[in-house]
């Protein structure tokens, strides 16, 4: 994080996202991971001679939906191109991708301050509220997966031909923390649209990073280094932190930065040269003659538009306004749509909606519940908050009710009855307790009247003890004061 004041990093990301489609990008094979190797294949995804691709419209719709969510310009006509290179895990030795006419161009990813690393959420860096520009979003097919054994290699073709969306950012990012928040913020958008599970650690979202440094104030970019093998958002952050420091150290020693691809080694916590880019690869892109241009303006775009969800930023401001939650709580709720729906149900009828948020986000969440399946109905939290708000129970009793709610789920009102917890708010009953307290503690009464106002606490403690904690403390306070000043 602590880039020496003199230097500034320039970072751009290329993010590959696996799409949640039933079938592969250009054939009808199942798009599913974790099954027996090469069990979801056909002539098309194996690239057998004579086979032809047919585009998966759902993948196109999901890419357009992503473009809509990120404010991209959507192409009325997009094209698929062939990207030519030889690799054993690529059955045709060309990848169907998009080059000149991608589905989406431009767009923005707003950085969520609460999706920066925890310890820097309070810094100006996180609070700056920056948005990162996107260059483009395009759709392509994924390659197969190679496995290397002692004396041979194997290829699992289940992944071959599955839809992959590539999101390319402008070189707008300046810090590892921003890159971290970019990936988190982007993921929230993808989750909101049910586009992808976008879990980096499961390979559902993969990221290549381009990073260079330059003296602050300089306009020209420095020599760009590409980082690979980044398997988590925190890995991206660590790799960038290391790589920026490495480049600065080299520059300060007067060494030139090589234009190269470096591999992040998470164990070693360092990057290592993978290949130099002296010979830039020539992919010989050309439009795939097997595929017609994609007309997005003939139904596909409209279909995507009907699936626009509430975006994370919109949802967060609504939660803050409608429920009085904090910005942090809004970010946490926004990051888990199931939990958020649970909260909204819980708070809908409650009098103190902010209290409901506290119960759910502090107490309930710490029990690691699954809001989708929990037997604890969301309405119970609204009821619990209301019981405190209307004085039926006090906060100490509420804790007991919560514990019982977790152990034997039932309506909090029921639990209050079951445990005999209802607060005593009856004035005459409380008056009797107060009279007893005054009679039994002449010393405290004297002290209070002499101006030691704290002495009243001893009287209150007597009442609470007598009432087995059920006395309404606010009312007791009022009654005692009235009696003592009489």
């Amino acid at each position, binding site marked *: 994080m602590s880039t020496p004041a003199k230097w500034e990093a320039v970072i751009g990301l290329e993010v590959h996202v696996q799409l949640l489609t039933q079938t592969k990008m250009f054939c009808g094979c199942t798009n599913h991971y974790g099954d027996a190797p090469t069990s979801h294949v056909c002539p098309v995804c194996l690239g057998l001679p*004579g086979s032809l691709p047919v585009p998966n419209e759902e993948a196109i719709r999901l890419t357009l939906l992503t473009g809509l969510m990120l404010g991209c310009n959507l192409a009325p006509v997009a094209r698929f191109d062939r990207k030519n290179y030889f690799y054993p895990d690529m059955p045709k030795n060309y990848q169907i991708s998009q080059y000149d006419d991608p589905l989406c161009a431009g767009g923005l990813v707003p950085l969520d301050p609460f999706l920066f690393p925890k310890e820097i959420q309070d810094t100006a860096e996180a609070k700056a509220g920056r948005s990162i520009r996107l260059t483009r979003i395009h759709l392509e097919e994924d390659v197969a997966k190679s496995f290397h054994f002692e004396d041979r290699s194997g290829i699992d073709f289940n992944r071959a031909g599955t839809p992959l969306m590539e999101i390319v950012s402008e070189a707008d990012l300046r810090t590892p923390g921003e890159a971290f928040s970019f990936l988190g913020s982007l993921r929230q958008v993808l989750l909101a649209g049910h586009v992808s599970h976008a879990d980096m650690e499961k390979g559902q979202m993969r990221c290549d990073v381009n990073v260079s440094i330059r003296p602050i104030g300089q306009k020209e970019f420095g020599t760009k280094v590409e980082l690979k093998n980044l398997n988590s958002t925190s890995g991206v952050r660590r790799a960038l932190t290391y790589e920026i420091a490495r480049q600065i150290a080299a520059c300060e020693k007067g060494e030139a930065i090589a234009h190269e691809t470096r591999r992040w080694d998470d164990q070693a916590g360092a990057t290592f040269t993978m290949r130099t880019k002296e010979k830039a690869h020539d992919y*010989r892109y050309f439009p795939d003659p097997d595929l017609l241009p994609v007309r997005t303006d003939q139904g596909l775009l409209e279909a995507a538009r009907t699936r626009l969800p509430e975006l994370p930023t919109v949802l967060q401001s609504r939660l803050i306004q409608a429920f009085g939650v904090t910005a942090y709580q809004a970010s946490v709720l926004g990051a888990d749509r199931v939990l958020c729906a649970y909260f909204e149900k819980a708070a809908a009828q409650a009098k103190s909606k902010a209290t409901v948020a506290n119960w759910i986000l502090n107490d309930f969440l710490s029990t690691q519940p699954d809001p989708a399946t929990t037997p604890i109905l969301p309405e119970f939290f609204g009821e619990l908050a209301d019981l405190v708000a209307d004085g039926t129970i006090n906060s100490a009793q509420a804790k007991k009710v919560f514990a019982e709610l977790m152990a034997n789920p039932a309506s909090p009102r029921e639990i209050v009855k079951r445990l005999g917890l209802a607060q005593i708010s009856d004035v005459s009953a409380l008056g009797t307790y107060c009279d007893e307290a005054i009679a039994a503690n002449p010393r405290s009464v004297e002290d209070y009247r002499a101006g030691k106002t704290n002495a009243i606490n001893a009287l209150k403690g007597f009442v609470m003890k007598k009432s087995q904690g059920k006395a309404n403390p606010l009312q007791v306070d009022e009654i005692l004061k009235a009696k003592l000043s009489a």
Partner: protein
Amino acid sequence: MSLAYETIATLRRRLLSKEIHPRDILKDLFTQIDAREKTLHAYTYLHRESALAAAEKADLSLPLGGIPIALKDNLNALGDPCTCASKILEGYKAPYDATAVSLLRQAGSILLGRTNMDEFAMGSSTENSALGLTRNPWDPTRIPGGSSGGSAAAVAGRIALAALGSDTGGSIRQPAALCGCVGLKPTYGRVSRYGLVAFASSLDQIGPLTRTVEDSALLLSVLAGHDPRDNTTDLRPPEKFLTQKNGSVQGLRVGLPKEYFLPGMDSETESAIRSAADWFKKNGATLVDVSLPHTPTAIAVYYILATAEASANLARFDGVRYGRRATDARDVLDLYHRTRSEGFGAEVKRRIILGTFVLSQGYADAYYRQAQKVRALLRQDFEKAFTQCDLLLTPTSPEPAFPLGERTQDPLKMYLADVFTISTNLAGNGAISLPCGFTKSNLPIGLQLIGPRFGEETILRGAHAFEQAHDFFQRLPPS
């Protein structure tokens, strides 16, 4: 007379009247094959047993019930070899049916065998086959044309009733012309390419080679139609072609593109084509002089675009998953190099290198992208011409069949064999070649009729009328 000499239409009538059985057709065909195949070498593979078994179960109620058909060896048929006449597909067995093949099966036809071709359909003489050359039935010292030379030689040599071919730059029409049979290249998008091993995807079309125009229409009616597996097939509903045959060309406007009649062209070819044009005029058609001004660019445009697409299409043959694999490779790069060096023939390598070059950074603008622009102009040429006429009438080939070996060392001269057929592939139009005469030395001459896009019905009507008014299609090659 041997049933091998009959047309599909006649055999179907005789089958339906129970006069003959499908096994009779096969028996006669195999007798012919035994007599002639040794000379012609039209086939790379024969389905003797499976064909006879299928004949016993043939469903005569289907449109091609009981009719044996040969396939060019670049069409996938489940369980059968699919060599593309290349060493690189040695031992490969197709794990699926091409759409065209499955349509033939559904129509009741019997797969007879697989026909020889130029390797990966790259060539005009069938001399570029790794499985040996095919000879012209009219003169075994001459080439049958190509790349569907095996299909044309088999049909013309009466050892197949009909065969499927593929046409990327003339590969159905030119061998049909040189062997004296009927070859139809449908409009691009008319017939599904699924299962046809791709040479140049934006140009390839599957089509029939037959003895008569009627048989050609019969096969096209089975093959044509949208295929959800081929994104480039047209969405129009299925059609039945040439259902009415009145033999009239009255009122037809026949265009003669001046760029197809050049000074110095083969005189026998020219006079046969002129006579054909005269016949159309005499029978009520109007002859119109038209121009396709970009014709001289077609060969250059074709050899840029076709090779560019081929360089990608043929990248998959790498020894990793199927087909030939070089032994003792040091690493994966060495495996690629050796498999492809050993597996591909010279012409295929030449075209892969050419195609790779025209797509390369720094050259793609001058070659690939420039050629795409000229292709659009070629297409406009045809669109404009078809505002003035209904059909274009041209020679199919600038000359009759040339001697074996004459051009194998001169690829450029070989490329000129397709000068009259290539433009229609670039424009996407359909076209037919049918016999329109013979040279003094008894070599067939082919007439090409080109239609507007999806104008196959007009093509077939015009061709059928001409064919039935002459006896060229009935002439037999020397046996």
